[in-house]
């Protein structure tokens, strides 16, 4: 039987096993929306802005490992997705975005709501397609999912002109894909793995540096086995947190600009660096000239282009983190040579001295609410079991520092692009995928306003997200840089004319709580967590002078961190002045 393109499209999603589509309708997508209406297998979640759809699909993907799916109309519909697509691209998240397009006969005519979707998204997708013939539709959808989810994952956009969704043909969903131009590797080269293991076992001051690639490849278990087998210290990137348990003594915390003192010092002093699924981002390395001056470097990555891109590597291994780790474990177990116990003991002694600096300490006697205290309390009350999404800024760094993630896929944040507005819609995707779990969105009063409209989506679909707004009345991270590097000229970083967030939440039908005293923090969080079926907006009025420490300033090395002191800058504080 012949089906229309729109029906074929929906059948494809069904046969691909798609559970949720996050989307927003419009002219060019109306045949598809009609086909969605006439079935009940694929559930459509109506967001309030297309950016929200992409972040929600992204949150779904990050928390499940399955691809997130987005459906939008042509023109403004698809341009609104660009930030979300770029966010997913930078963090290698599998998304498939379907955009309506004007009819093929109108393409190029500056037709109503026409944009060159393939052209606009090209630099921020793994690949994209324009479907010109309904007979290519099913095969293209299949390819899109295949490309998005294999190799180094990433977003794939499929642009579908309206007439293609009306035309008819026979439907058959391809069982498999083979593409002569796309054959991602998974297994690492055995010779290289052997070389790496020799180097690993000869190390005196080893350091394991793991990133988001371990989570993407489901490599958490082999990573944990690998680290414990060796007894070596491990630091994780912002994107990698949770792949190895953060509460484990072998974990020295996050590294990089706001990483721990012990992690960064150990990076600086190590003699063998084992990088796994991490890409030597500039926020991680600091000044490249000063990066790991004593280390011989092993780098495991699925993307050959990530290897030796920023830092020259002695032993490159192209392969999926999980597969390569499993191979390395085998070789280590079989090897006669064992890690040098004495050297390792001395190394740990040194690391423990750095640890004793207690670099994340903060003023616990403050009369104002310290943001760190809110997050520490949240961590304790949720037993470290919550899914935590975040926006971008100081609150993001504090969440990464103070919520100890013991499991992968629990910490959901925009690390690569640093997209304010990500947190709330991402939390929606996470909550859809994990309806019974506690999902918290840690945000700031500036970030939350970038996708605040999604509070309405949360109401429609009963998503009981807990929004932890660390309200410092500033774009805190911007203010911090201005304090340090611009002689306290706080140019346009003060958030004036803020809404009453409690009333705002209530007007959307949610619960709002405003917390102004440290003594009320725990009670409010408990109350919110108890309201299992309600979204609660917790507006914590925090100390606006607090800065994120430790910090490596631009152009500095890992051994040149600022620890404290955090001098309050009361004179410029408009509320206190």
């Amino acid at each position: 039987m012949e089906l229309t393109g729109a029906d074929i499209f929906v059948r494809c999603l069904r046969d691909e096993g798609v559970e949720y589509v996050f989307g927003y309708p419009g002219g060019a997508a109306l045949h598809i929306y009609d086909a969605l209406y006439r079935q009940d297998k694929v559930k459509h979640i109506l967001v309030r802005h297309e950016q929200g759809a992409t972040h929600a699909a992204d949150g779904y993907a990050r928390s499940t490992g399955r691809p997130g799916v987005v459906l939008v109309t042509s023109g403004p519909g698809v341009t609104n997705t660009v930030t979300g697509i770029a966010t997913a691209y930078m963090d290698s998240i599998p998304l498939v975005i379907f955009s309506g397009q004007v009819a093929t006969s109108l393409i190029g005519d500056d037709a109503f709501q026409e944009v060159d979707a393939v052209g606009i998204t090209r630099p921020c997708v793994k690949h994209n397609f324009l479907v010109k013939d309904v007979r290519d539709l099913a095969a293209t959808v299949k390819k899109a999912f295949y490309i998005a989810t294999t190799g180094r994952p990433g977003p794939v956009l499929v642009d579908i002109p309206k007439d293609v969704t009306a035309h008819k043909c026979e439907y058959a969903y391809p069982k498999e894909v083979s593409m002569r131009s796309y054959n991602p590797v998974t297994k690492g080269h055995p010779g290289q793995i052997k070389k790496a293991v020799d180097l690993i076992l000869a190390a005196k001051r080893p350091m394991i540096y793991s990133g988001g690639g371990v989570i993407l490849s489901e490599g958490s278990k082999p990573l944990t086995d690998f680290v414990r087998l060796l007894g070596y210290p491990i630091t994780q990137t912002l994107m990698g947190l949770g792949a190895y348990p953060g509460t484990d003594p072998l974990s020295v915390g996050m590294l990089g600009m706001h990483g721990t003192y012990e992690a960064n010092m150990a990076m600086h002093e190590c003699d063998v660096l084992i990088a796994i699924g991490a890409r030597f981002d500039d926020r991680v390395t600091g000044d490249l000239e000063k990066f790991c001056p004593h280390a011989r470097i092993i780098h495991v990555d699925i993307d050959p282009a990530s290897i030796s891109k920023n830092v020259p590597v002695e032993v490159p291994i192209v392969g999926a983190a999980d597969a390569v780790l499993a191979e390395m474990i085998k070789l280590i177990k079989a090897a006669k040579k064992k890690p040098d116990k004495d050297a390792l003991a001395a190394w740990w002694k040194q690391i423990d001295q750095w640890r004793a600096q207690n670099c994340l300490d903060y003023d616990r006697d403050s009369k104002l609410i310290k943001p760190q205290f809110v997050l520490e309390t949240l961590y304790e009350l949720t037993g470290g079991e919550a899914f935590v999404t975040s926006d971008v800024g100081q609150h993001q760094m504090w969440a990464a520092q103070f919520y100890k993630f013991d499991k992968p896929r629990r910490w959901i944040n925009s690390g690569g692009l640093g997209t304010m507005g990500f947190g709330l819609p991402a939390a929606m995707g996470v909550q859809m995928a994990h309806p019974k779990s506690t999902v918290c969105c840690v945000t700031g009063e500036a970030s939350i306003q970038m996708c605040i409209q999604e509070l309405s989506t949360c109401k429609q679909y009963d998503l009981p997200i807990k929004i932890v707004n660390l309200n410092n009345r500033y774009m805190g991270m911007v203010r911090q840089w201005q304090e340090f590097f611009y002689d306290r000229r706080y140019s346009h970083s003060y958030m004036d004319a803020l809404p009453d967030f409690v009333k705002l939440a209530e007007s959307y039908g949610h619960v709002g709580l405003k917390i102004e005293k440290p003594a009320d923090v725990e009670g409010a969080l408990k109350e919110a967590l108890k309201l299992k079926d309600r979204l609660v907006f917790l507006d914590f009025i925090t100390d606006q002078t607090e800065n994120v420490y430790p910090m490596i300033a631009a152009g500095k090395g890992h051994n040149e961190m600022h620890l404290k002191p955090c001098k309050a800058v009361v004179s410029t504080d408009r509320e206190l002045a």
Partner: protein
Amino acid sequence: MRHVISILLENEAGALSRVAGLFSARGYNIESLAVAPTEDSTLSRMTLVTTGSDEVIEQITKQLNKLVDVVKLVELTQGPYIEREMLLIKVRAAGDGRDEVKRLADIFRGHIIDVTDTTYTLELTGTGSKLDAFIEALGPAGIIEVVRSGPSGIARGEKGVHV
């Protein structure tokens, strides 16, 4: 350093802009780019000339390989290879100069492919430096228009770059 890369590319709409976009987005140089379909109409062949340090060239080839439309790629400058470029050039050829232009074309093994009372249009194939030398020999005064194809390259020996 100058590098010549031969690329087999899916002959798809947009494939060329993916390559061009990669170079502009990552700030790599493109000196020239010559592209046309091959004997297999689903494939295009591109010869791309770029400059950069060894590290940059390594990144360029890796990033090109990542493009889903790139089927295969060889850096020709890593081995013995041949490079040819075509020049079409229109020059003033009147009076005494007319014979001189023809003589020069003969010396460089060029062909006259179009003639008017006052001009010759010439075709010449060779390495870039040969074409440069020819243009210089003609001198700037007589040149009306220069059209160069950009180099195409192929490896020496028995091996070919194909799927």
